């Protein structure tokens, strides 16, 4: 089994990491880049496939050379075998369409795997387009919102549980022939039910610690010439999407009333408890 996991570096939006300027615009330079949090689930799905069926996991991303750290992080969490970074100026400032063209070309250059995994939406763009568009470009079946996965290696089929949220949330089980593309939901749960799987995981963890420390030995970087891509169809020039403007969302003003209570004032505290008792719903 060969799996390729698509991942992206995004600004670290966690409090204390992210930095905004006075107008509320993200300060890219001051905000560290991390692996897109949703991609963790894609990585775990690929890891489960590797633990159960053996084979190899490759991680692929498109971005500036500094994305090495992101790929290293991905390698550690999925115990990946090799890393691919599509990177040069011509590929920069791409929208999801141009990104999908580049990624699908990279995947084809590597050789079409059994499974392509993508996370659901990136934390910065939030379009959720790149995975499905890459899949469309590869012309293979796609299953989205996947929360559970099993592969029948002999029959060359994948069976997935997907979360369908309409008026009521439904869980749907679908099957597709391999190769296929799996967009993994944040509700995805790995499922290791045998000691053999746990032992395989332990082996992978041990060997990966060393490999991830020297991840650049396992990293291949391709530019647009390696991929034989026409600059007119990639990067900014190849992007049909035009972002006209970015407006910061103003924070809603606080509308709550605050009453100061002195904890030493027994009467005031008593009143507070009386008020809270009504809200506690119980006795």
């Amino acid at each position, binding site marked *: 089994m060969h799996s390729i996991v698509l991942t992206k570096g995004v600004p670290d939006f966690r409090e204390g990491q992210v930095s905004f300027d006075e107008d509320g615009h993200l300060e890219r330079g001051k905000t560290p880049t991390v692996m897109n949090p949703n991609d963790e689930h894609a990585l775990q799905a690929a890891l489960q496939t590797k633990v159960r069926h053996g084979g190899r996991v490759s991680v692929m991303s498109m971005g500036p050379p500094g994305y090495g750290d992101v790929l290293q992080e991905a390698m550690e969490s999925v115990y990946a075998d090799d890393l691919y970074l599509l990177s040069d100026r011509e590929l920069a400032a791409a929208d999801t369409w141009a990104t999908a063209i580049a990624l699908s070309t990279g995947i084809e250059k590597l050789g079409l795997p059994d499974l392509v995994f993508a996370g659901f939406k990136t934390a910065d763009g939030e379009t959720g387009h790149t995975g499905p568009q890459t899949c469309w470009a590869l012309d293979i079946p796609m299953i989205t919102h996947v929360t559970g996965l099993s592969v029948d290696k002999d029959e060359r089929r994948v069976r997935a549980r997907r979360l369908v949220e309409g008026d009521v949330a439904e869980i749907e089980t679908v099957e597709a022939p391999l190769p296929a593309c799996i967009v993994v939901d944040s509700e995805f749960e790995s499922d290791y039910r045998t000691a053999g799987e*746990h032992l395989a995981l*332990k082996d992978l963890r041990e060997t990966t610690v060393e490999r991830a420390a020297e991840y650049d030995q396992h990293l291949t970087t391709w530019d647009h010439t390696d991929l034989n891509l026409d600059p007119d169809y990639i990067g900014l020039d190849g992007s049909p999407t035009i972002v006209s403007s970015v407006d910061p969302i103003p924070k809603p003003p606080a509308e709550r009333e605050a009453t100061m209570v002195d904890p030493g004032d027994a009467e005031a505290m008593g009143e507070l408890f009386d008020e809270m008792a009504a809200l506690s719903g119980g006795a």
Partner: protein
Amino acid sequence: MIPMSDQYEQYEAIVVGAGPGGAAAAAKLADEGIETLVLERGVKAGAKNVSGGLLYAEDSAPYAIDNLYPQIRLEATERPITEYYIQNVAGSTVKEYDLTRLHEHDTRWSDAVLRRKMDSWLAERVHERTRETGGGLLSGIKVNGLLREDGEIVGVTCDEIDPIRAEFIVAADGVNSELARDAGLMNWEDPEQWFQGVKATVEAPNVNDRFDIGPQEGVAHLFSGDLFDGVRGGGFCYTNVDTLSIGAVFHLDSLVESAAEPHELLNALLEHPVCSQWIDDPYREVEYAAKLVPDSKKVAHPDPQSDRLVLVGDAAGQMQAQGPIIKGMNHAVTAGALAGEAFAGAKRRGEPESAGERYVERLYESGTMAKLRPKRYERVRPIAERERATEVVDRLLESPIGRFGVRALDATGLLKRLYSSPFMSMSIPDTQTPYVTLPTVIAETLGEPVSDDTTVDPPSLEQRIGELTYDTDIGNPHIELLDNSVEASGAAVTACPVSASEFGGGCYREETIASNGSTKDVVSLDTQPCIECGTCAVVADTAWEHPSGGRGVEFRQG
């Protein structure tokens, strides 16, 4: 959704529990090329283990841990015990006897150990060795019962993973072995059959100076006499590399009868000058711990096997505590290795199903069972443990005649020789006499006053619990109180080492509930502070299980 295969996973051998007994079994099995899976419920091996802890290598035993793991003393134990004393205490007078000769009898070496460090060291080697056979060690997996087919034991069931079949199952899952109970081989019902140990690991950066020993030397002190409000038991203080293991072990029935608080009895020892003289000022406690200890004289199972299952170590009640001789881990190691050897031999002969019987034969042939259940004790017990006899002897000892006798015995050196006699210690009855009366009389008659300036101020029970690490399985308590009446379960309030009467932050507490105009006292349980010792399984009416793999308390010292 994942299609489950109709075939369970299968290994040649499964070892449940990665303590010394499990590690010994795994080593023998792996060395024989047997595919061996080791399952440990602690988040890391050693996280669930507490011991006093002296680890012995006996000359007469067929196996010791360093036969199986040669580097262990260099890398994972604390200090060799080179001096061994007993302190008989009465009030503030103390009479010391040097028991080094008794300690060295049949002893190739004896090291103080801390279980987290030692067991996790062992676990790494266990994994390496068993992995080569196609098995390996997994921690954080709790085995919760036996897999049976047509009534026959064929494997184990787990909380975290699917059932696993095996040709041979070694239950080295400790004093509260759920497998031993599932197999109907052991129960936890009679407090007379168990001890409870409580221990503080205490910071001691100046061990060498305080005990006047070199870095490769160590001291063990035992304490007996009137330290513990008449509760039958004894104390100990062992030197580690830069800590002390100070603790006490009590007969559980005596603890229950006296409604004594184990943590307070431990404090009585810590605060007594006979012990505090070894402690640095200010007192700093690294960890509070407790454990249930089987009394092998009464519970070592005479036939610890059933179908493909064998029990080793505490799971089989193989903990020898006879007077000043306290040996558990070494017997677990011997039993584990004998079990591994028995299965390898049985398999070679093409009759793997005979492994259990062969293991038990070897327990007897090797003399292990004779140490665990000494004939001498069995002969003395019916006479010596009769209440009337105990009373007569105690009165006599306390009388002027007794005191004269004690003095005479001491003057001739006979008392020391009696104390140092392995023959004698094998026949010590479990009564007040050897644990409390005799040491007290000895100290009163022959002792000298001991004093010490160190003020030991032990932490409160609340602080001790607060310092422990827990990963609580919230909403899924692992102990259920079946009968909450004070008669059935009230003993747990005091006997539980993390509960106390008038303390609301422990596992067990007494509550008064009002209903229909009358009030009733009941016992309530909150398992959050539980340290999984199993005391309440014996003294209260509970449905007792361990938490799931990796959950519950995590000892850092053990």
